[in-house]
């Protein structure tokens, strides 16, 4: 026992003194996760970005206000502010707005008489997507004007021409135009605002979920990233056997009386500490950020630690099957990456085609990932985890026994 602990201490010290390797094992999955998360539109709690659109109405009529209102209601994408031209240009120059829309002085006349006019749209060059959306939205305005004129152009032109000099529009005339416009809108309502598809959305929620977080993409992705990280840590620690081989320390250990059991056991113990720490930190931060109740954190971290330890034992075995470090790397890569791909680490099962998700859940890492997810979402209690835990411990122990046997067969002694 003394040597086992001393051996673990030795390997822990070596890992502590080579932090770059450990950071890489954790950092690479995080980077991959961040990239995939970005590609899929970010985490569950992310809000939709809004464009700040500054509107300058050189004419200052109610039609400018109509344009502002129309933009504000365009899917909630724009936050429209009417500003003075100089102020708007300065704000855009400072990069404080997405676009500056300038309505010309003849805007009413152009709108009512269907005459040419230029609407200026100035864009913030630091932004790429939102200014384009503003531009596209504003560019639909001429089309809108065209169709309105086809429908009530005559009335608009009459209104634009104004009443006879020295008079006002008689009430009958105003009422007539209003009635015509109302009837037109009523007639078109069924076409323009059709309830074409009535989608009934029913959200089925289990009772337990009421206490838990909303299952966003980030929460579905977090366990997968952790499993990827654990696999990389396990792969790196497995490779350490080759470093010991190169340093000849493995040969010296072979002629020591304690033998390889305690030697490899110490390595596994040090590795278990690392994977437990990684799981605890990873899941701790994840729980805090994604709103998972902290009460689930210890069980999830323990499951992660156990899974990582079993993975290390498996990686020892794989490295010891290989004839050289290079062959060992190729072998583990050939196993690790397909497993990560299909086992829910690169893409959550929920985002996979049904058949692929079903296959992925059958892989060892996919199986473990589902249990981890269940713990985080509060769908697994202690009794339900007993059998999987026993299975994981048995698998790890079998891999460890195989690795020790391979080590003895290869290096003799011990």
């Amino acid at each position, binding site marked *: 026992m*003394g*040597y086992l602990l*001393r*051996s673990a201490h*030795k390997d822990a*010290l*070596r890992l502590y*003194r*080579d932090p770059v390797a450990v950071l890489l094992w954790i950092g690479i999955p995080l980077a991959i996760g961040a990239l995939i998360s970005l590609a899929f539109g970010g985490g569950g709690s992310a809000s939709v970005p809004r464009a700040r659109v500054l509107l300058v109405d050189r004419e200052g009529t109610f039609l400018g206000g109509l344009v502002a209102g129309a933009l504000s209601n365009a899917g909630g994408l724009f936050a429209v502010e009417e500003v003075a031209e100089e102020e708007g240009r300065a704000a855009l120059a400072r990069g404080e707005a997405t676009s500056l829309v300038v309505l010309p002085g003849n805007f009413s006349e152009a709108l009512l008489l269907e005459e040419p006019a230029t609407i200026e749209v100035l864009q913030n060059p630091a932004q790429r997507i939102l200014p384009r959306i503003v531009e596209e939205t504003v560019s639909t305005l001429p089309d809108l004007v065209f169709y309105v004129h086809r429908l009530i152009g005559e009335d608009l032109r009459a209104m634009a021409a104004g009443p006879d000099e020295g008079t006002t529009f008689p009430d009958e005339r105003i009422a007539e135009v209003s009635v015509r416009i109302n009837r037109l809108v009523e007639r078109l309502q069924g076409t323009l605002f059709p309830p074409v598809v009535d989608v009934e959305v029913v959200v089925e929620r289990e009772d337990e979920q009421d206490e838990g977080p909303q299952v966003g993409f980030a929460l579905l992705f977090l366990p997968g990233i952790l499993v990827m990280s654990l696999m990389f840590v396990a792969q790196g620690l497995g490779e350490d056997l080759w470093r010991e081989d190169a*340093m*000849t*320390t493995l*040969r*010296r*250990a*072979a*002629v*020591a*009386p*304690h*033998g390889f059991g305690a*030697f490899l056991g110490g390595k596994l113990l040090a590795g278990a500490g690392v994977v437990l720490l990684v799981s605890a930190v990873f899941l701790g931060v994840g729980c805090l950020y994604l709103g998972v109740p902290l009460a689930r954190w210890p069980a999830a971290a323990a499951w992660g630690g156990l899974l990582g330890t079993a993975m290390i034992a498996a990686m020892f075995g794989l490295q010891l099957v290989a004839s050289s470090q290079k062959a060992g790397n190729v072998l583990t890569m050939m196993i690790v990456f397909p497993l990560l791909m299909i086992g829910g680490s690169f893409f959550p099962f929920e985002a996979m085609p049904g058949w692929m998700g079903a296959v992925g859940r059958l892989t060892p890492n996919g199986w473990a990932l589902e249990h981890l997810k269940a713990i985080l979402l509060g769908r697994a209690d202690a009794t339900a985890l007993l059998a999987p835990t026993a299975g994981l411990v048995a698998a790890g122990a079998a891999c460890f026994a195989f690795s020790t046997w391979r080590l003895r067969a290869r*290096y*003799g*002694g011990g």
Partner: protein
Amino acid sequence: MIEVQDLRKTYGDLVAVDGVSFTAEGGAVFGLLGPNGAGKSTTIGCISGLLRPTAGSVRVLGIDVVGDGREARRRLGVVPQELALYEDLSARENLDYWAAAYGLGRGDRAARVEEVLELVGLSDRGRDRVKTFSGGMKRRLNFACGVVHRPDVLLLDEPTVGVDPQSRVRLFDLVRAERDRGTCVLYTTHYMEEAESLCDRLAIVDHGKVIAHGTLAELRSLLGERDLLRLAGAFDPAAQRAALGALADVEVVQCEAEALTLALPAASRRLPELFEAVARAGGDVRETTLTQPSLETLFIKLTGKELRQ
């Protein structure tokens, strides 16, 4: 004490060790001398339990290394040819780890580590990581890791390969200190001068076999105080063998078309006579080397080749 009896180790058709037998006593340095590939490291491997002998027996302090390997290994210390150290750990951490690996208790270890650091002259560098050490310092630490648990039997497998002369002298002192402590030291080397200055008893091995063994004096006596005279040039082997064989006290060790090796007493005084005989047999001498009796000359006499060939 190490007792090796009819040790044989084969790898398929390759015979690495072929019936080697010797006994090494405590308080003495026993040398295994031979060229590279002679089977020295394989013999060490079998004694340390790293390799399982194909046949024969090896006993360490009366314990069979195959039957009770764990107990035998507890009494053994091994200093491998390659450096077997953790470069990321300090000298003290390395020693502490290997002491634990050899079963030294925690209470014992701290004092013993300091003692060994002092012994190998690394007390002031104990906290430094091994990767900052010079080659000679690493060699000394490598030695220290092999003796930190106070072994009764110490196996040193060519510990001075690639070591500078100063560190080599230091290592010799350390080996002698272990011997004086009563340790049975088995030392393999292919350097004659090392064997001559360090070993109390020797076995000369070649092609996996012991070709001579005994104390230094006993081995020298095999030469009969004869010098070794080596001639290079162009020779007719049959004619030379006949001409030189007729001379009194001249032993033809090697006779080839381009080289002649002769063993004879007081060779320097008989050079004119020898050159005349060689010339009469049609020989043409271009180079002459005269060597006083030594292990080197003995090895040449026994195998017909130089040790470093």
